[in-house]
């Protein structure tokens, strides 16, 4: 009873605080910090697949939308916290490559990967996992109510009948949004591309902050047309949403979900194991459940609701160009569509 | 006092207290002998409570010393001083029983349980509430609560008892009764006691000595009789009891001219022509007897009579003085002499207790 009651109380508070702090730092397995923009509903399967092969490596996911994860990695450039970047747009990985943040590494079985789905350098700094591409979610029930025709092309969406009925992802936040914009600029040419977006902007009800949200909104009938990507579109349709998947004729924006190793990682062995697994057949089989095209073309399998000629519909995409001009394109986009009053 | 064999129970030497630029107390000197009961009295803001809190160590003086039983406690925290205290608000712990409240300071001294219980019983009996032990403070009346607070303060047998306006929150009847009880208890226990009050009647009726304070200074220290009958300053005269103040001029030889009258007050020390104020208590008058043989006879018209119970107070307009005086009389006199509003009243001044102050000393 030497210590006074008051002081005893204080010390117990302090102890408790320390306990809370230390509670999260106990581990014996190798912990690999993986930054990702993968959908949360995909993560679990991938993690289980990897741990079947490497139970001694624990993956700690830091997940956010493409824009946010990209900004985060750039902000941490001086002292990166990530060991591996997995399931992030190739456009973003190309930026990190240009910044010299990635480790050149040829994962086992690299030769199976289609040449257009990997960093052309040898050894590559990033390797693609699968392709995800633009898809329009079109709500047939609401369209019928309003007498709105199904769009066939991107340019159809600029018609007045779609006014206030189109939602798309915000290109600064969402990788899907960004490849939509870059695809339009590459397919239509810069001047024509911006003109198209000016017209589209007149019909846009909202720019949303994830690639999934527009399709979910269309699925729930909030809006008729949601510009999204095929994985989410299929999920919503499978849940019973009255939507059709539309793949506009001009060509589809797309990007690769890719993996790269952060050069400064102190756990390169474990990181390489993850990279090796990510291009393995087992991993490709998991990707193929979600995406129609995987990086090893032979392992792609058709998805319901996705046309057989999906691969040929993808627009030509220059990742290096999209990466290099990212800041410029986003600034121009923001200037055009964010600083003027919201359309009704 | 330095050669006194027993040290003073409490000595205050040149205590000064300032709150920022406001001077709350200035150069207070005071010595209290063991077993004495002293009252600090004065209007609010006079510094009496501050002085008590400095004695208790609840406030720290800006300069000066506080010496208790020969020990310098000027900078000792409250717990290192030896006193019990009772506040106006009682400050009884509401969630503890009366017994636990009284035992509060005893339990901390790790006395045996039985001893504590015995002491609590003794104290409760002492304050006249022997059966209150199991009750809670909220179940007692204000007067009872204050008695418990007193018991709690006395429990540890402190050498000094501090009472901070202990009766102010109580009804008039209870207040009067408790006055006597506290004083009797104090005299029985012979505990040195300092009480703060703004009620002059309380101060006069309870204490051995009264300390009259005003604006941070002591105006007068003395027995109740001293301060009432021989107030040292106009303020003391005015503050304690009722008083009529006559404006006049010294006429020399103990005579003072008020209005058209020369009063023989037998007071020296004023040069002829000095303007003065003459302080008279309402009871400083003769109403009966051979008025004609008495000096300083006056006549005036009764304007108004205030009934105060056993005593009545008449406002009398004296044409000769050109001023109004207060004259007190018993109810019997009122009837016997047939004094009513509007009648004339003859009386003579009693000058043995009259106080005359130079005009310049009156603030």
């Amino acid at each position: 009873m030497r210590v006074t009651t008051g002081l005893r109380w204080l010390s117990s508070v302090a102890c408790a605080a320390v306990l809370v702090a230390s509670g999260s730092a106990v581990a014996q397995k190798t912990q690999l910090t993986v930054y990702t923009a993968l959908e949360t509903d995909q993560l679990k399967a991938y993690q289980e697949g990897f741990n079947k092969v490497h139970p001694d490596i624990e993956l700690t996911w830091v997940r956010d939308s493409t824009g946010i994860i990209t900004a985060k990695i750039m902000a941490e450039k001086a002292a990166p916290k990530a060991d591996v970047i997995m399931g992030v747009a190739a456009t973003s990985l190309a930026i990190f490559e240009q910044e010299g943040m990635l480790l050149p590494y040829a994962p086992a079985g690299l030769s199976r990967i289609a040449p257009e789905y990997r960093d052309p350098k040898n050894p590559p700094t990033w390797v693609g996992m699968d392709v995800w591409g633009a898809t329009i979610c079109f709500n047939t029930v609401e369209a019928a109510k309003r007498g709105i025709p199904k769009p066939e092309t991107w340019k159809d969406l600029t018609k007045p009948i779609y006014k206030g009925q189109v939602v798309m992802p915000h290109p600064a936040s969402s990788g899907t949004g960004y490849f939509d914009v870059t695809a339009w600029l590459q397919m239509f040419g810069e001047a024509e591309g911006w003109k198209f977006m000016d017209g589209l902007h007149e019909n846009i009800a909202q720019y949303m902050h994830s690639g999934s949200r527009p399709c979910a909104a269309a699925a729930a009938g909030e809006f008729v047309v949601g510009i999204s990507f095929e994985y989410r579109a299929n999920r919503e349709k499978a849940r019973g949403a009255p939507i059709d998947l539309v793949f506009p004729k001009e060509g589809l924006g797309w990007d690769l979900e890719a993996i790269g190793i952060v050069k400064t990682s102190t756990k390169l062995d474990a990181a390489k194991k993850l990279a090796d697994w990510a291009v393995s057949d087992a991993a490709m089989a998991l990707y193929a459940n979600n995406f129609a095209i995987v990086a090893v073309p032979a392992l792609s399998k058709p998805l319901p609701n996705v046309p057989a000629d999906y691969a040929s519909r993808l627009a030509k995409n220059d990742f290096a160009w999209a990466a290099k001009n990212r800041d410029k394109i986003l600034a121009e986009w923001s200037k055009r569509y964010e600083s003027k009053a919201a359309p009704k | 006092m330095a050669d006194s064999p027993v040290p003073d129970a409490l000595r205050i030497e040149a205590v000064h207290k300032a709150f920022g630029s406001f001077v709350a107390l200035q150069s207070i000197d005071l010595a209290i002998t063991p077993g004495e009961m002293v009252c600090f009295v004065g209007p609010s803001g006079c510094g009496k409570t501050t002085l008590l809190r400095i004695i208790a160590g609840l406030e720290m003086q800006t300069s000066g010393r506080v010496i208790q039983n020969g020990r310098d406690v000027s900078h000792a925290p409250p717990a290192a001083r030896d006193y019990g205290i009772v506040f106006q608000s009682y400050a009884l712990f509401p969630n503890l029983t009366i017994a636990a409240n009284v035992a509060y300071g005893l339990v901390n001294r790790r006395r045996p349980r039985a001893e504590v219980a015995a002491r609590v019983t003794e104290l409760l009996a002492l304050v006249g509430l022997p059966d209150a032990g199991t009750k809670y403070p909220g179940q007692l009346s204000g007067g009872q609560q204050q008695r418990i607070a007193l018991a709690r303060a006395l429990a540890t047998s402190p050498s000094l008892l501090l009472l901070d306006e202990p009766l102010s929150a109580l009804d008039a009847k209870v207040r009067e009764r408790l006055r006597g009880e506290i004083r009797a208890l104090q005299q029985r226990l012979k505990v040195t006691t300092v009480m703060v009050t703004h009620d002059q009647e309380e101060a006069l009726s309870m204490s051995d000595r009264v300390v009259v304070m005003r604006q941070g200074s002591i105006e007068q220290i003395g027995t109740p009789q001293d301060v009432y009958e021989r107030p040292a300053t106009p303020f003391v005269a005015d503050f304690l009891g009722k008083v009529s103040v006559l404006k006049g001029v010294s006429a020399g030889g103990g005579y003072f001219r008020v209005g058209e009258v020369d009063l023989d007050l037998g007071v020296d020390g004023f040069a002829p022509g000095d303007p003065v104020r003459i302080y008279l208590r309402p009871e400083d008058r003769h109403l009966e007897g051979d008025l004609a043989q008495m000096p300083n006879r006056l006549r005036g018209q009764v304007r108004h009579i205030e009934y105060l119970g056993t005593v009545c107070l008449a406002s009398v307009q004296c044409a000769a003085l050109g001023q109004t005086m207060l004259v007190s009389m018993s109810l019997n006199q009122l009837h016997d002499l047939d004094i009513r509003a509007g009648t004339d009243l003859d009386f003579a001044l009693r000058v043995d207790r009259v106080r005359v102050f130079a005009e310049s000393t009156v603030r």
Partner: protein
Amino acid sequence: MTATATGTAAAVQRVRATGALLQESLAVHGGLWLLATGLLVFLTLPLATLLIRSFEDKAGVFIGIANFVQYVQSPALARSTGNTLVFAFLTTLLTIPLAFVFAYAIQRSCIPGKGLWRSIALIPILAPSLLAALSFIYLFGNQGALKFMLGWVGLSTIYGLPGIVLAMSFAAFPHAVMILLAALALSDARLYEAAEALGTSRWRRFVTITLPGAKYGLISAAMVVFTMAVSEFGVPKVIGGNYPVLAIDIYKQVIGQQNFQMGAVVGLVLLLPAVVAFLVDRQVRRKQKALLTARSVPYSPRRSPVRDRLLLAYVLLVAVAMMAVMGMAVFGSFVKFWPYNLSLTLAHYTFGFAEAGVEHAYRNSLVLATWCAVLGAAITFAGAYWVEKTRGADWLRPLIRFQALLPMAVPGLVLGIGYILFFNNPSNPLHVLYGTMTILVICTVIHFYSSSHLTAMTALNQLDGEFESVSASLKVPFYKTFWRVTVPVCLPTALDIGHYFFVNAMTTISAVVFLYSPKTTLAAISILQLDEAGAIGSAAAMASLIMATSAIVTVITLGIENLLLRRTQRWRVAART
């Protein structure tokens, strides 16, 4: 006993007393220093960092006001500033009259069921503001059950300004009602009696007595609602459509673009209206205090059939509307596929959370809320006691008092950014806290410190101010009296504070949205994530779960308080009479 023996005994006693005194002064000074240091490190330094970083470039070089110039010249940001003010102003304009009439009906009329109406009005406090946003989508979204009603007021869509104003008003309503209930409770019946005696008409009495009497309450409520709206993040995110506001900008700058300097600038801009509102409110509250004297006679309303019936109808309407908003989100959380498949399911609660990877978020929130309740109540209560009731180290006290009130003027988002900037700096030894549950607990306790501190202070000031003096005179150290008297007497207040922390920790988003890590995602934040992933059913499920949890904890708290009051009834009831 000989004189020597007495002297020795006294000396021993004195030595023992000195030891105890040393301990006591250590406890006082230690406590005050700890409190001052804690507030400095976890409040003032993060805010100072925010201020400093707003004058630096990315590399940390001082660049003066260049960031501010860039902010002013950026049209998108300037537009958000205007939008935020319009949004906050409209929310205030809508909420205050609704809340005033509601509070007036409860305090100044004779309608039946006052307790029920009051409870219903306060329920939104238990839910995250996002619940309202989700409900309004269910109700007035393009597939909304009541969408046709939008046309009545000339609106074509709920997304954007209409949605955020409505949802925010719903979330802010109980806060305004609480303040106005208090303001209308304080009124001097003698004024009304005097007016009536003079033959003053009812309307004139309302205008000349009631309104002026409630004036400060009205201003105070308006300021609280305005500040809430200015710093609200979740509602604009979910139902804001293309109506950008400052709070969203901050998030975009800091999280979306990792542009901390610009985030700091926007944070400071956001701080401005909040600080102004805070100062006005402080001023007003001080005046309110002076308005009533101890001698005031409480007013009790008399029956008036017409007025009472009208007010009852109004209160009923509001209550039904509130229940509808809350009920809609709960209903939505059980609907399989809104609006096409209305069969009921639990899937959003089970499968939905797992699919989005937020199944641990709810548990995290419970952990956070429990820690905040326990630590928050203990720290604010002990802190208020240290500041108000102990003696010594007087120069520290004003410093602590100021810092204790500061969080009230700091929007959660601003606090959150301050935390990122301060703790996410590898050279800061406290960097280890970053990303842990600990920092979430600390940040949340600090965020809601002011109200709790004030509540604790009010309770403590109701105690007799001389308890500590009496203890000192009895040579009982202050902490013993704290345990034996202060804590038991104030236990109901301490419970209230704990409950306040719990509920706010369950529902808060604004500060912690910058601080959570993948392992410490919180339930309220997961609503945003679920909404972003398009899982609106699961978002509604999480919001409902939070509301249910808060409600259960509220019921438990009330139960404990009741029990406590009954157990201590003997002295409490006695003390009141």
